[in-house]
């Protein structure tokens, strides 16, 4: 069970309270987590990564285990603690004005 925490504006869009819990079959990577997240919550498509290129949107960041994983390759394995559900995968709206 993977734990994902979304920023507040995406939780409201997807009508989610608290953490999202996802079952991932196979390798736990940025791509597999986002694929599962978007399959469960289709309204999140395009809000975290581009629908065509699958690139992370510029002002979205991925954190876990006190590390910034935003620039990791999409198919890189996430930390064991995330894969084991001990630590959440944080999808964060970057600090920017407005």
């Amino acid at each position: 069970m993977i734990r994902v925490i979304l920023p507040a504006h995406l939780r409201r869009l997807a009508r989610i309270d608290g953490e999202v819990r996802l079952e991932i079959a196979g390798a736990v990577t940025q791509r597999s987590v986002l694929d599962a997240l978007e399959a469960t919550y289709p309204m999140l498509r395009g809000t975290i990564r581009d629908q065509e290129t699958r690139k992370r949107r510029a002002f979205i960041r991925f954190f876990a285990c006190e590390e910034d994983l935003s620039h990791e390759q999409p198919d890189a394995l996430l930390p064991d603690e995330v894969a084991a559900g001990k630590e959440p995968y944080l999808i964060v709206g970057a600090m920017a004005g407005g």
Partner: protein
Amino acid sequence: MTGVRVLVGTRKGAFVLTSDGNRRKWDVSGPHFGGWEIYHLKGSAADSNRLYASQTSGWSGQVIQRSDDGGVTWEPVGNKFSYEGTPGTHQWYDGTPHPWEFERVWHLEPSLDDPDTVYAGVEDAGLFKSTDGGHSWQELPGLRGHGTGSSWQPGAGGMCLHTIILDPATPGRIFTAISAAGAFRSDDAGQTWRPINRGLHSEGIPDEDAEVGHCVHRIAMHPSRPSVLFMQKHWDVMRSDDAGDSWREISGNLPTDFGFPIDVHAHEPDTIYVVPITSDSLHYPPDGKLRVYRSRTGGDDWEPLAKGLPQENCYVNVYRDAMAVDSLDACGVYFGTTGGQVYASADAGDTWTPIVRDLPAVLSVEVQTLP
């Protein structure tokens, strides 16, 4: 009893303002989609309960919301806007070719007769259409591809398609306007397009009478007389009597002919409204006085409308999509400001009252006249 529903898009959410036909007491609902920029929302003429909203943010991109109950509840629908074929390039601010990149939806225009059909004007400028209630979107690529697209340049606010007008009398005729490319017309339901900018004269572009490159801010039409168009250009208020084939200036005695919105009285096709703004570098009303100007003669001769509007220390702007009219017997006129006020007039502009004063900056105002 008849009533009105005013749909307000702001920098930080959408608001729905409703009143009965007297338009004195208002119910304010919102913010819907709090924290998101709502560039535009508009109801279907074929089903007043069907609304579409463009919800966007710098963090999370574009969302399209749809309501089937007049704005009480909303559901996100499709948000995939992919340009047809190889997108190609337009001019960038520095004159270099720049790939077409989708940024946001500026304007949603529901079909006149089918609630499930809606057009979207987007940045970078393009026209999209959905025929399934917003779930999927297809570009009408003939607009970008008609020949001048590679020379289009963004205005200061981005290269946006902000105006879509569907001709109620001529099937298949659509007007669009793009900043800063100009006005365009299709006579075959959006398959092919041509620029309609003859008569526009714009200082600040190399060829002041160029076929494209004019910063058109808004076009308005009265449905009973669709061959007559009114335009607020960057500078100049213009009029066409031949569906855009040619234009003539009607700025007349306006204190300044810079501005953004323009609209037409619901029952008087020659009564039009603009909000003069000081200049392109001073985006606020002249002398700190907020005044709508009305012409009852189709242009040239204008009168200020100030009763109920602030006449000192007012330095707000009124954006291009932030004025609308209702179709009650005494035509109502509405506009929203960057200061968060939405003003209403229940007597065609003679007197004004704020419905709300402290919303986030208003990006768009649309009105539905309810049965």
